[in-house]
C-alpha cells in the first residue's frame, strides 16, 4: 500500500475539541447580547434619560465611535460596527479564560480568520478608493521591487495573527503548567491530612487568580486595543486624499 502525499481520509470529520466549542460559546454570547440590546432599546423612549443597562451600552458605543472618528476621520464613522464586533469578540475570548476554560484563540484558525477579515477590508478599501492605481503599490519605488512588495503585503496579516495566537497560547501553557504543579505541591503538603481525591485543591486558588488577572484580563485588554488600533490605522492609510479638519469627535460637534 503506497502512502499518499495528501491524506484526505480525515477531511470531513469535524473537530470538536475545547477551543472550537469555546469559539461557538463566545459567538452565542454575542448573539444573545445583541438580541437583548435590540429589544431593550426598541421600547426605550428617546426623550427620557438613560438608566443602568441602556446607559452602559450607549456609553460604550459612544466611546468606541469617538475613538474610531478620532483615529480614522469623520467619513469612516460607519466602521464603528466592525471595530466594536472585533473588539468584543477578542476581549470576550480572553475574558472567558478566567473560568479555566480554554481560550478560543489557541487554535490557529481563529486568529487567522480574524486577521483575514481585516486584511480583506484593507485591500477592499484600497481598491475602492484608488481604483486602478491600486496596482501601482507593487512597483512602488522601482519595478525591481515587485517581489519584495508582494511579500511585504502579507506582513499585516502575519503580525495580527501571530500576535493573538502567541499571547493566547503562551498564557494557556503557563496557566496549565501552574495548575499542574500547584496541584502536585498541594498533594505533597496536604496528602497526609485529607482524603486522597481532595488533597490537590488547596494551594492553586490562592495563587492563580493573580496570574489570571495578568494573562487573561490585562493581556486581553491590551491585545484588543492593539488589534483595533492597527486595523483602524491600516484602513485609514489607504485613503489617498486626507484632510485634517475631519477629525472631529461627536462631543465636539454637538458643542
Amino acid at each position, binding site marked *: 500500500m503506497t502512502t499518499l502525499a495528501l491524506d484526505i481520509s480525515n477531511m470531513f470529520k469535524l473537530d470538536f475539541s475545547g477551543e472550537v466549542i469555546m469559539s461557538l460559546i463566545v459567538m452565542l454570547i454575542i448573539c444573545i447580547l445583541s438580541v437583548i440590546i435590540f429589544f431593550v432599546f426598541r421600547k426605550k423612549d428617546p426623550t427620557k434619560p438613560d438608566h443602568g443597562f441602556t446607559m452602559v451600552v450607549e456609553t460604550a458605543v459612544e466611546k468606541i465611535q469617538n475613538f474610531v472618528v478620532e483615529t480614522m476621520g469623520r467619513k469612516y464613522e460607519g466602521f464603528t460596527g466592525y471595530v466594536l464586533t472585533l473588539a468584543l469578540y477578542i476581549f470576550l475570548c480572553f475574558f472567558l479564560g478566567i473560568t479555566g476554560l480554554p481560550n478560543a484563540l489557541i487554535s490557529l484558525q481563529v486568529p487567522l480568520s480574524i486577521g483575514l477579515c481585516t486584511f480583506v477590508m484593507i485591500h477592499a478599501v484600497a481598491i475602492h478608493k484608488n481604483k486602478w492605481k491600486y496596482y501601482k503599490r507593487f512597483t512602488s519605488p522601482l519595478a525591481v521591487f515587485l517581489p519584495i512588495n508582494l511579500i511585504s503585503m502579507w506582513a499585516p496579516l502575519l503580525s495580527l495573527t*501571530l*500576535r493573538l495566537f502567541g*499571547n493566547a*497560547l*503562551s498564557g494557556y501553557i503557563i496557566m496549565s503548567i501552574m495548575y499542574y504543579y500547584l496541584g502536585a505541591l498541594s498533594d505533597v503538603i496536604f496528602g497526609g491530612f485529607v482524603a486522597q481525591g481532595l488533597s490537590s485543591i488547596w494551594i492553586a486558588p490562592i495563587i492563580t487568580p493573580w496570574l489570571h488577572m495578568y494573562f487573561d484580563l490585562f493581556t486581553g485588554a*491590551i*491585545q484588543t486595543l*492593539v488589534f483595533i488600533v*492597527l486595523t483602524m490605522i491600516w484602513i485609514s492609510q489607504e485613503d489617498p486624499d486626507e484632510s485634517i479638519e475631519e477629525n472631529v469627535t461627536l462631543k465636539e460637534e454637538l458643542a
Partner: protein
Amino acid sequence: MDNGLKYIGAGIAMLGVIGSGIGEGRICAHALDGMARNPEATSSLRGTMILGCAIDETTGIYSLIVAILCLFI
C-alpha cells in the same frame, strides 16, 4: 540525539527576546522623559507607550512560537 537537538533549537530560538526587552525599556524611558517635561500630556503619552510596548512584544512572541514549534512539532 534528535530529541536533544530539539531542546537546543528551542533554546537558541528564544534568544530573540533580547531585542524585545531592550526595545521596551527604551520606549518607557523616552515616554518618562516626555512625561517629566510635560506633565499635562501624561495620559496621551501613557496610552501611546502601552500601545508601543504591545507592538514591540510581538517580535518576542514570534520567537516563542518558533521555540514551541521546535519542541512540539
